[in-house]
């Protein structure tokens, strides 16, 4: 048992795991910073990828990217391993724990017994840290829980080898080398610029700000195309992806605003504080969308709550984010912030 593992509850599992692991290895990092350096903010609406028969809407980058990018940008060595055989996968976990290292693992959430039942969907991109074995149970630092939890070996095995989309295949990861000191400045700049690029300059209409606009058009067409019942299910799904556990609220926009605030200190650039405030109000506007949408879902629309009105809010978010990332990008490109390549 690694008794000193610095468990901190976080909003999002992947950035939480990254921050806690790095902190354990002597590189103190907040969750927001890990999220930002990992360029966690994103948007994509992928109607051809179905989760429970509903189109995939995501406000964050693909699972695993935050960890990889944080490791790369902070020059931290990190190994990932997947397993074909579950017994092997569990044996390797035990072996690594005996070596005294906390081990990160990707799991599904459906089979984790300590999760609130209402959150147990077949979602396979959850991340946690195993910090020790106690008898036939594992001590787990699950970043979305307040305290470390215990989980039986059989349950953990099932969760690690869950099947379906994004199957974890027992993926384990750990840090192999951590530099004594890291200059966070280039890491932060590069990370911000990557988000700006992903949000405004990918020439695919489903990704970034273009994707948000596309979603707006879809929202408008749902009632006539899908009928009342399915339109509400689609809407509910977007609200869940935006607000449910692991987002920090407002579709990850608040956690990103927190990162920008910290980045202002790191880069010694007070203008980033204004950007942080703007991001907060963009997040607030996304929440307006959720509030109005939920009223419609509940069958209690107020005033002019209808699908075109929802689409309007989404478009306003798209416009705000478009301007935001364009200006943020030009700030990062200007003068002293220019990233030397």
């Amino acid at each position: 048992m690694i008794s000193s593992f610095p468990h901190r509850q976080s909003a999002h599992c992947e950035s939480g795991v990254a921050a806690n692991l790095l902190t354990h290895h002597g590189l103190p990092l907040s969750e927001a910073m890990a999220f930002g350096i990992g360029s966690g903010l994103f948007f994509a609406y992928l109607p051809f990828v179905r989760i429970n028969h509903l189109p995939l809407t995501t406000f964050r980058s693909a699972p695993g990217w935050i960890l990889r990018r944080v490791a790369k940008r902070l020059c931290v060595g990190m190994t990932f391993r997947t397993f074909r055989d579950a017994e092997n996968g569990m044996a390797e976990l035990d072996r690594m724990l005996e070596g005294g290292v906390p081990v990160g693992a990707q799991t599904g959430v459906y089979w984790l017994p300590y999760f609130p039942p209402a959150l147990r969907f077949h979602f396979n991109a959850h991340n946690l840290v195993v910090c020790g074995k106690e008898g036939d149970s594992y001590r787990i630092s699950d970043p979305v829980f307040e305290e470390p939890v215990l989980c039986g070996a059989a349950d953990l095995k099932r969760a690690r080898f869950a099947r379906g989309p994004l199957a974890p295949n027992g993926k384990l990861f750990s840090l192999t080398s951590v530099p004594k000191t890291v200059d966070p400045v280039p890491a932060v700049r590069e990370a911000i610029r990557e988000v700006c690029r992903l949000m405004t300059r990918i020439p695919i209409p489903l990704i970034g700000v273009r994707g948000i606009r596309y979603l707006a058009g879809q929202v408008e067409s749902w009632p006539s195309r899908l009928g009342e019942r399915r339109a509400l299910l689609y809407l509910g799904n977007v609200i869940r992806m935006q607000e449910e556990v692991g987002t920090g609220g407002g579709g990850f926009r608040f956690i990103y605003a927190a990162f920008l605030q910290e980045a202002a200190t790191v880069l010694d650039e007070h203008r980033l504080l204004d950007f942080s405030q703007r991001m907060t109000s963009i997040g607030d506007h996304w929440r307006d969308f959720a509030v109005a949408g939920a009223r419609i879902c509940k069958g209690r629309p107020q005033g002019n709550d209808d699908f075109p009105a929802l689409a309007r809010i989404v478009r306003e978010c798209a416009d705000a984010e478009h301007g935001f990332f364009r200006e943020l990008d030009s700030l990062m490109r200007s003068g002293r912030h220019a990233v030397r390549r």
Partner: protein
Amino acid sequence: MRRKDVPQDQGLFGEWKEVSYAVDDDGRYILVPSAGWEPANIANHMAWESIEAEVGAVLAKVRIGVLSPLAYHMARHQMDPGLLAGYAGLFRWQVRRHMKPAAFRRISPALADRYAAIFRTTKEELMEMPVCDPPTGTRK
């Protein structure tokens, strides 16, 4: 979002709290525990209602002999044939076939054990006509 606006609307999650990011009086970001937020709760509730409706519809079909009990266990665990096939190490078409009562009655005892282990039930319960049991999420 300001600290005082962090919602505390308890929904389906019981005692468990998530953390959300909010701004304190000085404009600094802090982490604040939140019991849940009504709009998110509504959306979550709706998702579970649709799963329950699905389970109910499947159960009715099992009762009149159109589908096998396997289909009921799948619906209860939010599994489609592809997902169950992944767990059981079968092809999707085999699982689809076992959703028919006639084919399901003839599966080998070994396969029945495998299915039972996946659903954490006994072979007998798996083969029998199911008694209604709500899906995981709505159980407190």
